[in-house]
């Protein structure tokens, strides 16, 4: 955190960005973005204290720094009822989050149940997979789940299991 106005001013004035202005986006992206004029650099939000007030500023840092930090930080489990993290970056991921979302009609959004129907949020991944397979082969008796489980592939069941396991109930 930069605590001195003077230091910040010095850094800004020394910045090549001011002498070679780059057209910046008029709205702030929520995460790191790569700028053509700064190849190999990414802009990240940084907490800055100016005159005793904490604000968020954008700073350019080497891309490697962000990558190593990201790798070291495990993704926290989503809060119950909190908005899901920003979007799926692959076909598998986008398919996974939609099919998991269709479970919510009975099991509650993100698997957090608001009814006597069991919740799925926070269920152990292996347990979820085992139950779905048991519904599929009839070894676990059900009124309706066997009719659903049988329609999903093993991969899809693994995806759903991972998604629900990551939600804090």
């Amino acid at each position, binding site marked *: 955190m*930069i605590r001195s106005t003077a230091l910040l001013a010095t*850094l*800004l004035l*020394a*910045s*090549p*960005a*001011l002498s070679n202005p780059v057209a*910046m*986006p*008029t*709205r*702030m992206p*929520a995460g790191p973005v790569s*700028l053509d004029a*700064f190849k190999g*650099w990414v*802009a990240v*939000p940084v907490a800055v204290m*100016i005159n005793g*007030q904490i*604000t*968020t500023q*954008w*700073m*350019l*840092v*080497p891309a490697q*720094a962000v990558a190593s930090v990201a790798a070291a930080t495990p993704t926290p489990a989503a809060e119950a009822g909190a*908005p*899901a993290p*920003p*979007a799926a970056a692959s*076909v598998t991921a*986008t*398919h996974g*989050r*939609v*099919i998991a*979302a*269709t479970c*919510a*009609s*009975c099991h*509650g*959004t993100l698997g957090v*149940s*608001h*009814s*006597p*129907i069991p919740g799925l949020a926070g269920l152990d991944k292996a347990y979820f997979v085992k139950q779905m397979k048991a519904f599929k082969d009839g070894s676990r008796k059900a*009124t*309706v789940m*066997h*009719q*659903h489980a*049988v*329609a*999903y592939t093993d991969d*899809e069941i693994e995806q759903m299991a991972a998604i629900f396991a990551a939600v804090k109930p």
Partner: protein
Amino acid sequence: MTMQRRDFLKVSAAGLAAAGFPLRAHAGAAKAKVVIVGAGFGGATAAKYIRMWDPAIEVTLIDREPKFVSCPLSNLVLAGLKTLDDITKTYDALKTKYGVNVVVDSVTAIDTDKRVVKTEQGSFAYDRLILSPGIDFRFDQIDGYTAQAQERILHAWKAGEQTLKLRQQVESMRDGGLIVIGMPLAPYRCPPGPYERVCLIANYLKRAKPKSKIIMLDANPDVASKKPLFMKAWNTLYSDWVEYRPNSKVVKVDAEGMIASTEFEDIKADVINIIPPQRAGQVAEMAGVRTDSNGVWCPASFVTYESKAKPNVHVIGDALLSNFPKSGHMANNMGKVCANAVVELLNGRQPDPVPVVSNTCYSAVSEDRAIHIATVFRYDPAKDQMTAQPGGGISSDLSEEEAVYAEAWAESIWSDTFL
């Protein structure tokens, strides 16, 4: 984070410009605008899930009603087993928790070239438009079903005021009276709904007006949903109260004389409830997307629900031309597939290429027993269709356990859609 001092020298001009302004996830102009018309199971779900999956997208949700009244479980209100309040939900959480801009107003025009939705009080520009307008009734298909006749001969097929009015009609009927319930050829909103209504009104008559009767006039050649279970309910619980007639389309009504007519006979009744033939809501016509061969339903992609007639306009719910049952559960599922597709497309990415949606639909047959049907549909890219997967089916019997699940299902889907 740790970094070299020299790295601090590279500071973005935008950082300078933003000095002193706390960064919120969507400060300044939104990434894109989505307008949704229809705040039912389809539209409200789509609104919530777009906001969940990309809060940088601004969502405006327009409906002419200030609150949502659920068609599912409304037959229990007709039977005196629930109140209208029990099945009414507000849009508060969509506003305060998810930041949906909820607008209570009527749509007057849609310009799909300029991408603007006009309402009585306002005007809303969109990048993507989602229509979930439900159904409108084709009263013109039945002789005599004028606006005046509609005051006395109710449909109660959009829950709310008509639910209470029909309940009042049934409650104030004399013991020994006759109720005629007419229903249209499939496809129509909620395949089992009319049969559930017959069960539950019969349940009330059995308790409160045991000399009364119901005649059901079904345009279809046979019970169109959960047939063996509804027949069992009528035969074992309500045989003295229910007469079911297939191949009996209502072609004419006389609201003065209180007569419902098929092609072959006229039936005089104390209460006439007609569920008319239906088509996609008028809003779909305003957008120019009600374009199947009869101008009745809306053809759209099963991957994105984008209309085949108009780009950037998506259609979900009952209004869609499809092999889906027209149910709230399906609309809720379509809302999610559509929300995801819209989010991915607005972010320059690919939507889910093989959507899977499902329907779990409960019907109450009495105050303590219910039945269900469950179907999973998977997209088949080779045939460009949604195929019902093997393994779906109905209950094995009328069930007390399922009556508990039916109630739980409703609480659950209402919370998933509105909370």
